[in-house]
């Protein structure tokens, strides 16, 4: 396959006659280039041997090796370049097959930490060799199996010398209670004012009086007094309900009224002595928010930065004012319990009882309120 060829140069007189005679000796000549005083040709090894064995006055020179010889010569003359070229290729291959960073694209830091540890176990970490496609697929599968409650989908993507781990967290929804059979029942006594039923059989009417626990919307579907099926009843039932609220206030009740004045001061306290620095206009009544700058171990000496808000105390409150304050307190108490679409229909102060030091005010409220709540039950067949 790798024949050795040589380029020769033959010089002398009457070269055509010499060429003719070479044919008689069985010497094969290729690519003959003839000039007046010499010719060049390419000969194989056996022809060259025969040529050199000839006893002739023609001058025969071997100019160059060709084929494998030329290749050998070329390699030897460029050996440094070739060695460094291959070293470079190997180095590049090495560097491009090493992991320089692993990035997990997720906001869940706890899960990220677990994943980094997990990837470490599979040698996907800094300064380790990259994995082939089959390994990555297998690692993904194993991680998904191990964190099947946390991870919905995972992708390990290699971009350059970095691995980007993209994942989708698994969100496990709670079992929908809608699928369980239930009734809508009254959570307190009242007169029904509005029924909004989206599922189930409505068993009460508007203006019906209901007690706590009465079924308002049934999960049992009846047909001629016979239960034909069960469903998860759902809906809202609004009713008029009643409250009596008692509010007790001290007679010497005072009211804080902020003046709107405020200031920031530095305060030093040592044992019982307490004073503000550069504070010429001291507030007689104030709310103080304190930020400690320095305090010793025993709290004997303390420097703090205080925010002071001035207020005045309104002590001139008579009985009527006291009552209205109590009614407002009662109203606030009711309103705080009401939700959307719920409101106070009517309110009335029932009585005021004055004691030595306190005043007790009883207020009646009529409230439009959602009284529905779910009650779950099992089928008879279950």
């Amino acid at each position: 396959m790798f024949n050795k060829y040589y380029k020769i140069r033959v010089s002398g007189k009457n070269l055509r006659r010499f060429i003719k005679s070479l044919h008689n000796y069985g010497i094969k000549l290729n690519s003959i280039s003839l000039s007046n005083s010499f010719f060049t040709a390419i000969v194989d090894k056996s022809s060259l041997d025969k040529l050199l064995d000839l006893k002739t006055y023609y001058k025969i020179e071997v100019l160059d090796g060709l084929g494998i010889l030329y290749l050998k010569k070329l390699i030897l003359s460029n050996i440094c370049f070739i060695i460094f070229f291959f070293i470079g290729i190997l180095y590049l291959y090495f560097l491009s097959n090493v992991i320089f960073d692993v990035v997990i694209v997720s906001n869940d830091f706890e899960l990220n930490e677990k994943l980094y540890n997990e990837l470490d176990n599979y040698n996907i970490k800094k300064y380790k060799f990259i994995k082939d496609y089959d390994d990555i697929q297998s690692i993904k599968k194993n991680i998904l199996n191990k964190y099947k409650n946390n991870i919905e989908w995972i992708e390990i993507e290699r971009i350059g010398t970095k691995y980007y781990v993209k994942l989708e967290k698994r969100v496990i929804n709670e079992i929908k209670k809608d699928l369980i059979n239930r009734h809508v029942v009254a959570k307190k006594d009242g007169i029904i004012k509005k029924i909004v039923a989206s599922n189930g059989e409505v068993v009460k009417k508007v203006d019906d009086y209901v007690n706590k626990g009465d079924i308002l919307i049934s999960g049992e579907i009846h047909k001629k007094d016979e239960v034909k099926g069960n469903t998860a009843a759902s809906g809202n039932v609004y009713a008029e309900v009643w409250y009596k609220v008692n509010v007790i206030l001290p007679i010497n009740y005072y009211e804080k009224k902020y003046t709107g004045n405020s200031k920031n001061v530095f305060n030093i306290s040592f044992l019982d002595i307490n004073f503000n620095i550069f504070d010429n206009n001291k507030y007689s009544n104030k709310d103080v928010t304190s930020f400690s700058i320095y305090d010793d171990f025993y709290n004997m000496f303390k420097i703090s930065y205080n925010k002071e808000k001035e207020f005045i105390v309104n002590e001139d409150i008579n009985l009527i004012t006291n009552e209205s304050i109590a009614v407002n307190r009662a109203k606030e108490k009711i309103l705080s319990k009401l939700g959307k679409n719920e409101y106070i229909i009517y309110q009335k102060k029932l009585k005021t009882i004055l004691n030595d030091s306190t005043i007790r005010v009883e207020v009646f409220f009529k409230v439009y309120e959602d009284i529905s709540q779910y009650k779950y039950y099992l089928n008879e067949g279950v």
Partner: protein
Amino acid sequence: MLKSLSNYLDCSDFSLNYCGKHIYINNFIDILILEPEKIVLSMITGKIIIRGNNILINKLLDKEILLSGDFKSIELGENNV
């Protein structure tokens, strides 16, 4: 078919291909005359005389020869001519 295949692979018949400034001859026996204006080759059935100007041998193997030059004529003759 086998005969034609064998003949194709190991052809022993004399053949001459002329294309412009080159002549390729296969299965000749010997070079009788080699001059710039004339080349005479012997073959089994006789000899071939090629005339022209600046005739050169490009390739010379056992039974093959490739010539180049400005060819004027190709003649066939008998061995004793």
